[in-house]
């Protein structure tokens, strides 16, 4: 599509060029106009500042240049798919994702997209809000985070389940003992005293049964809002959102994030929010481990292994100490000043609940590689 036709048409629609320019210059969020195949038509002053490119440099370029992998190589496909199916996955909905600055760094953004027809041609307008330094939690982030907090509760369940089972065992053992005792007392021809004792034993049985019921109800209450929902999801989408969330507030650390996902294993059968929790924990740990490192490279990759997808998160940080390593996935184990040390234990609970495994190994560059597997949902041809 020709920028020389769109811009005059927009000018006509908005009144004057000065009017249009003033709108573009004062919109606080970055505004980028693209045609239906992704070619940049217009790039606002805020976009110039946010991404580090001048408008004259990027007009005519594919908008995918402003994205890191995996969106970079997939964006043409997203547009093609929309042209073909008309199914809106982001237009009018908005999402949190990651953008790439000219200097190579990535930063979290909130992206809203509108669609319009000008002069018979379809154009898309992207409004981009940088959430790196946000002071107040954005609505979308709030939603995601409260969901994540929720997942935390569900995952704690896994850790608590064994102690609850133990608790439940006590009244059940007592019930069995009282019943056996009562049966013994009632055998043959019991006298009045034996009948009285048997009655007491049965009363005690009822008390213990109610206690067991209460324990079960407590578990149910604990879980009530935490039913998990496994669906077919795109790993790239899950990753992009988790990455953006993990990068919020991490911009000043200058971490170089690389994402290399295997397109073959993109579809996974998971609870999206839970897996985002795992990624969020692992990415944040990786960023924290690199705070004092001269090289801060974070590499996230995936590849298919049979009917599972293996996801790895590799940092160039300080590594895991030998003393901590054997018990790293146990709850309440941490090397951090702050934090309870339940993050990795939650990760393990979630991954294992998905039928996967999680582990770690020293990385070649001196840091650590965490690796976990998830079930694929790819349909076999």
């Amino acid at each position, binding site marked *: 599509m020709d920028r020389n036709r769109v811009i005059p048409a927009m000018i006509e629609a908005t009144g004057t060029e000065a009017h249009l320019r003033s709108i573009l210059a004062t919109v606080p969020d970055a505004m980028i106009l693209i045609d239906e195949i992704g070619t940049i038509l217009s790039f606002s002053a805020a976009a110039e500042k946010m991404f580090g490119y001048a408008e004259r440099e990027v007009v005519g*370029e594919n908008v995918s240049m402003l994205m890191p992998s995996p969106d970079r190589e997939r964006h043409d496909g997203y547009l093609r798919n929309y042209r073909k199916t008309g199914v809106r996955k982001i237009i009018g909905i908005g999402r949190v994702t990651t953008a790439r600055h000219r200097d190579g760094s990535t930063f979290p953004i909130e992206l809203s997209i509108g669609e319009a027809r000008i002069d018979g041609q379809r154009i898309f307008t992207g409004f981009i809000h940088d959430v790196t330094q946000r002071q107040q939690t954005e609505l979308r982030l709030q939603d995601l985070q409260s969901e994540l907090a929720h997942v935390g509760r569900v995952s704690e369940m896994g850790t608590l389940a064994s102690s609850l089972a133990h608790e439940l065992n006590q009244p059940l053992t007592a019930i069995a003992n009282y019943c056996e005792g009562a049966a013994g007392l009632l055998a043959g021809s019991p006298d009045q005293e034996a009948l009285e004792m048997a009655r007491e034993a049965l009363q005690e049985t009822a008390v213990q049964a109610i206690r067991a019921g209460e324990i079960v109800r407590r578990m149910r209450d604990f879980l009530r809002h935490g039913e998990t929902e496994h669906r077919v999801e795109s790993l790239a989408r899950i990753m992009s959102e988790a990455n953006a969330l993990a990068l919020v507030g991490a911009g000043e650390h200058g971490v170089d994030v*690389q994402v290399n996902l295997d397109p073959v294993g993109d579809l996974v059968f998971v609870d999206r929010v839970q897996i985002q929790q795992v990624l969020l924990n692992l990415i944040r740990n990786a960023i924290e481990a690199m705070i004092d490192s*001269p090289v801060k490279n974070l590499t996230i990759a995936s590849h298919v292994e049979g009917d599972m997808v293996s996801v790895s998160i590799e940092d160039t940080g300080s590594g895991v100490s030998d003393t901590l390593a054997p018990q790293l996935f146990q709850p309440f184990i941490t090397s951090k000043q702050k934090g309870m040390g339940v993050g990795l234990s939650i990760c393990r609970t979630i991954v294992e609940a998905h039928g996967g495994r999680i582990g770690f190994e020293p990385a070649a560059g001196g840091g650590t590689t965490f690796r976990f597997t998830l079930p694929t949902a790819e349909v076999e041809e």
Partner: protein
Amino acid sequence: MTAHRGRMNAWKSIRLELDRTDDFPTGSVGRAFLLRVPLDDEGRIDEAAFANSPHRATIRRHWSSEPDESGHLERLEDGWAMRSNGKADRMLKLAGEGLRLGERIVLVDTTGAALPFRIASIR
């Protein structure tokens, strides 16, 4: 101390953007390499600093509509090469001596084809 600080500061992040070619008559800012390398005062890659910590000399390839690639700088007998791991291994030799802001540099692939780049920033 000064020399030490000098060495520390020698590590630069350099952005190479595609310069004018037949396919891109005005060049393309959406096709770039990011190099992290130590430079001496003349803008040449500092061999000693590189030899000290070669794993720090990283390469990033950010190319419109293509997956990001990462790799490392390599010392060849007759110069330097950038090796990155995309679908296939990619090796590009740096032709020329120095890396100075605004200047052009040519990258030569294993078939001998040359791609011109402009040094867009050195930080």
